[in-house]
């Protein structure tokens, strides 16, 4: 039941390329806190970092279900690269959702030809409460002017472009900003807890002036309206990334338990260890099933996808965090080396409980939904 959709050639090739380019290098990238730019540009140039972009714009045109499996595949190898996929995918989806035909033609092409992009929502005073954003986007004649400060922007340290959300009129707007524009300053977040090589950075925009056609459509809508679409993409992507984390943990824990001998038998013969493996298996199946449901909703453009995305993200992040902790427990000292697969999973999964809607924000949204449906 893991793969209800047939594997397309495009997806199979993308997964193979990811395996070749990432291989066993993720440990080193994590320790260094840096991804090689040439790897990112090659993945980007093949359209893999935003693989749902239609072929007409140079993308692979994968369905959400297929891109989900690709995301899990990459996530099992390296959550930092997967994190880049989530950000670039959100940037592309925002342009696809809000952009005019001309904006889509220009920016989606850039995003499938090796240029790297992130999405800037959060600010020092606006994390879960995005309504408190103070970054401003204003139009002066044929110029759009951006002022403000964004924090913890994934990929920003590598990005050529940022899709920046800010206040606009009585609502919000989104603008596509090349990072080499005068007034843009990118400062790397030192030593993040997880996804260490994903290029998190704080970004300051000081009187940044761009042609007015950099402002995407939908400007003036309430901030909730504008960001929910991008966040929904992000939630599906993060959820699939967590499925990948669980796969990496299952692989590491099962291999170790099958070979490591204690008290004269393999670890797996000890029932308390076997239980960890069983729970990891259940965590993976439940998370993958929930992700498949959300992706099916996305591919059928069904209204349920919005809540399914929050559900999948919340469930998968929790499972990944607990599953990674269990995997470290099974590997014990063999898993306690920083940079190793289960140590990375342990740190990366914790961040998944925070981003794209923390556990608590997800619970608030789901609680409200449950009340509406079941009361």
């Amino acid at each position, binding site marked *: 039941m893991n793969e209800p959709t047939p594997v397309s050639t495009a997806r199979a090739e993308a997964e193979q390329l990811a395996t070749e380019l990432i291989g066993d290098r993720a440990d080193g990238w994590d320790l260094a806190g840096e991804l090689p730019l040439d790897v990112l540009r090659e993945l980007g140039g093949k359209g893999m970092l935003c693989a749902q972009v239609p072929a007409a714009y140079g993308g692979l045109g994968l369905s959400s279900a297929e891109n989900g499996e690709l995301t899990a595949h990459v996530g099992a190898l390296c959550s930092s690269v997967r994190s880049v996929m989530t950000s670039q995918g959100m940037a592309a989806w925002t342009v696809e959702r*809000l952009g005019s035909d001309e904006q889509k033609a220009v920016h989606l092409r850039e995003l499938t030809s090796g240029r790297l992009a992130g999405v800037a929502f959060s600010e020092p005073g606006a994390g879960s409460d995005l309504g408190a954003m103070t970054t401003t986007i204003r139009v002066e004649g044929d110029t759009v002017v951006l002022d403000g400060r964004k924090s913890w922007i994934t990929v920003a340290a590598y990005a050529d472009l940022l899709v920046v959300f800010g206040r606009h009129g009585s609502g919000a707007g989104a603008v596509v900003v090349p990072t080499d524009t005068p007034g843009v300053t990118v400062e790397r977040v030192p030593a993040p807890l997880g996804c260490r090589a994903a290029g998190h950075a704080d970004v300051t925009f000081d009187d940044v002036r761009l042609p007015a056609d950099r402002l995407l*459509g939908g400007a003036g809508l309430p901030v909730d309206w504008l960001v*929910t679409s991008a966040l929904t993409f992000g939630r599906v992507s993060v959820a699939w990334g967590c499925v990948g984390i669980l796969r990496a943990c299952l692989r590491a824990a099962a291999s170790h338990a099958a070979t490591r001998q204690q008290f004269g038998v393999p670890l797996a013969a000890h029932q308390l260890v076997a239980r960890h493996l069983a729970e990891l298996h259940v965590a993976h199946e439940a998370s993958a099933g929930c992700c498949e449901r959300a992706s099916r909703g996305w591919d059928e453009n069904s209204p349920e996808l919005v809540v399914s995305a929050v559900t999948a993200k919340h469930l998968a992040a929790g499972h990944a965090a607990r599953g990674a902790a269990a995997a470290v427990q099974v590997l014990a000292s063999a898993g306690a080396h920083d940079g190793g697969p289960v140590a990375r999973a342990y740190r990366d999964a914790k961040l998944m409980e925070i981003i794209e809607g923390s556990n608590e924000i997800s619970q608030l949204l789901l609680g409200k939904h449950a009340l509406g449906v079941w009361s």
Partner: protein
Amino acid sequence: MSTPTTEQDTTAPAQATPTGQDAAPAEDTTAVRETLTAFLEQRTKTAVAADVDLFSTGLVTSLFAMELLVHVEQSFGVQVGGSDLTLDNFRSVDAMTALVLRLRGGGDE
């Protein structure tokens, strides 16, 4: 799911669309309005008049706003692009009905 009908285009003047061109058959308007109302009433468990302001009444919350957008796209086979993403187009059942009829007219988007 209703599809645009062409057989009865010669019937009595239908309600004007905001653009004033290609007035839709009255039955099309009714079908779109009924589909939208049914979705809203099912999700909000409230009777929703076609002209009620969905935002000032607080019926539409952040997640529900996107569900509504996706519902409009899916039910009527239209794509609501950037320049049509305005509050005014989603403010009421009447406003969404007009948007759908305009987009389905397939005119000069």
